[in-house]
């Protein structure tokens, strides 16, 4: 039976030890970090086990929680390695874990029944029967897909099969998250590290790094009788960062389990300011206020969105440059175009 929260938890990103510390200082109740190779971000934003221990110590000194995201879809061959890693994290004192693979979730739940498990947004758990399935596996709280509307969120909250965690700062992908392999179709390298960990470079599901190919410019064309005609001008496929505000008072009234801020790839000062914004907003809501029409709050949010978008655009350009053009191995004779 899952542990009920007394109040909504504010969960913030820890893309580095410094970011985790800044997030706690800015008012986060909890932080999530990814161990190298195991979370849905590239290794630059993941932490060594030693740094995870430092974050745990800092969190517990300040009465806060640390959740470890091991939410890649692992290879069959590394499940036991993952279980050993989690056992080690439990000894280090983590407060919870974030997972995606249903079988792995169930093994973790069976081996460590007291450990709180969150289902990653990568599960794309989108209906009440699926929530029951994940509850069967041992999930306490599900991060819901960004596509779900308030009616659906209320239904899932009322059903109470699992707790509801909502992404307040994240991006809505072109596809349902966790259901996309466009990046690894373009470029994917599988390497096995000396410690036996498989690294799937270019697969967001398996290794974290996404080349964001959906953000390059795509032209829609139709082929008829061997001729191609173009429709409209090239544009990206749609992958939009959001910063929820007006919705937050409703979520607080619903007493959802968790509001999560994504953004391990942003700078520490920006993450710190975003956490502070949501901390103050949630506290105001808990005191019965609704600041969402206050011009000062609106201005503050808009300024942060501008900073966030600038950082994101730079990052997208870097990724699209880094992934470059595909180097293919020998291809059969070309027929048609590509």
């Amino acid at each position, binding site marked *: 039976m899952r542990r009920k929260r007394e109040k909504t938890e504010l969960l913030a990103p820890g893309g580095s030890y410094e970011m985790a510390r800044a997030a706690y200082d800015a008012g986060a109740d909890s932080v999530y970090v990814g161990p190298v190779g195991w979370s849905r971000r590239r290794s630059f934003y993941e932490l060594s086990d030693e740094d995870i221990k430092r974050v745990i110590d800092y969190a517990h000194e300040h009465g806060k929680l640390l959740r470890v995201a091991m939410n890649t*879809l*692992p*290879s*069959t061959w590394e*499940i036991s390695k993952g279980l050993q890693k989690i056992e080690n994290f439990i000894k280090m004192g983590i407060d919870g874990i974030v997972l995606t*693979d249903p*079988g*792995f979730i*169930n*093994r973790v739940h069976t081996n460590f029944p007291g450990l709180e498990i969150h289902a990653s947004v990568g*599960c794309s758990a*989108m*209906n*009440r*029967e*699926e*929530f*029951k*399935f994940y509850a069967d596996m041992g999930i306490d709280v599900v991060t819901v897909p960004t*596509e779900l509307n308030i009616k*659906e969120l209320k239904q899932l909250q009322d059903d109470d099969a699992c707790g509801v965690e909502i992404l307040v700062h994240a991006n809505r992908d*072109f*596809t*349902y998250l*966790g*259901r*996309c*392999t*466009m990046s*690894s*179709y*373009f470029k994917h*390298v*599988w390497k096995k590290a000396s410690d036996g960990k498989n690294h*799937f470079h270019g*697969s967001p*599901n*398996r290794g974290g790094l996404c080349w964001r*190919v959906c953000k*390059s*410019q*795509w*032209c*829609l*064309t*139709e082929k008829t009788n061997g001729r*191609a005609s173009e429709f409209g001008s*090239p544009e990206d*496929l749609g992958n939009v960062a959001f910063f929820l505000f007006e919705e937050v008072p409703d979520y607080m009234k619903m007493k959802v389990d968790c509001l999560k801020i994504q953004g391990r790839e942003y700078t520490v000062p920006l993450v710190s300011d975003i956490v502070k914004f949501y901390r103050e907003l949630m506290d105001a809501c808990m005191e019965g206020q609704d600041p969402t029409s206050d011009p000062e709050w609106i201005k503050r949010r808009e300024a942060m969105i501008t900073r966030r978008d600038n950082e994101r655009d730079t990052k997208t350009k870097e990724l*699209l440059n880094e992934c470059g*053009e*595909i180097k*293919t*191995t*020998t291809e*059969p004779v070309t*027929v*048609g*175009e*590509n």
Partner: protein
Amino acid sequence: MANFELSTSVFTLSEIQRTDISPFDSVYLGDPFCRDYSKNLGENREDLKKAVELLRSNDKKVYVSSYSVPRNDDLDAAERLLSWCEELKVDAVEIHNFGTLRMAKNRHPGLKLFVGYLANVYTEPTVMKLKVFGASRIMGNYELSMEELETIKNNCNIDVELLIHGKMILGISETCLLKRRLEHKEDDCMDLCRRDFHLVSSKMFLRTFGRVTMSGKDVCMIEHLPEVIRRGFKVFRIESFAENRDYAGNVGRIYRKALEEATGGKDFNPYNYLPELQKISRSNLCNGYYFATSGQEYVTAGQRS
């Protein structure tokens, strides 16, 4: 009796009526990507019944694909489709969503259940749990390598179906890209996805089917059939729903003959078939992720040996 099963998927009644299904042992009926498409067999009981009868009269096994991304409001339709499948005594239902699987297991214990490629099956522990929920066949996520799939097949003692030719689904979206880009406002989408739309960027070439985005290249495993068979795979799919009307029959006939040769101890030379498959495919070929490369790469049999 051949010791393999060759399958394809068909989404509407008119498509099944004009497809040459003779090379196939079984057919998956229904569009698992879009509930708005009015001709979707998964949404029309009478059409589904006719399609089932057509397949039965041709002595084919009948599978039905259910909607892959059901939200709460879609669950009644999922339940309705499961009831139709039970009533029509189809051979199995392909399910891409763990919620639908749980419903099927609890409410329709008589149905045979397969788990599809959009369910994101990656590991052996997951397949072991899915077996508890009644799954007797799975397609792993396309990102799995041949070695991983073989491990799962052997350790879980379950049928693992392979996409052996055709386009891979690379992602499914909440809304239709074609309706959005073409500013199509009417509810009736007028067969937009049946037209030959592609997405082209400086980096890649993809096929779009509105709700799903697909590989621009066709997966082609003809050169690798000996390895596939040596690894013990027996169930194969040719994905043909986004192709012209002759594709399924033409590609199916080639693979039927090739598989009969390769499994029957006869001389098998893939290069007797490769040029024809290249011609039919209209774009380059690839091997998906079977050999742990980028999805769009092609690996020759020579490079594997």
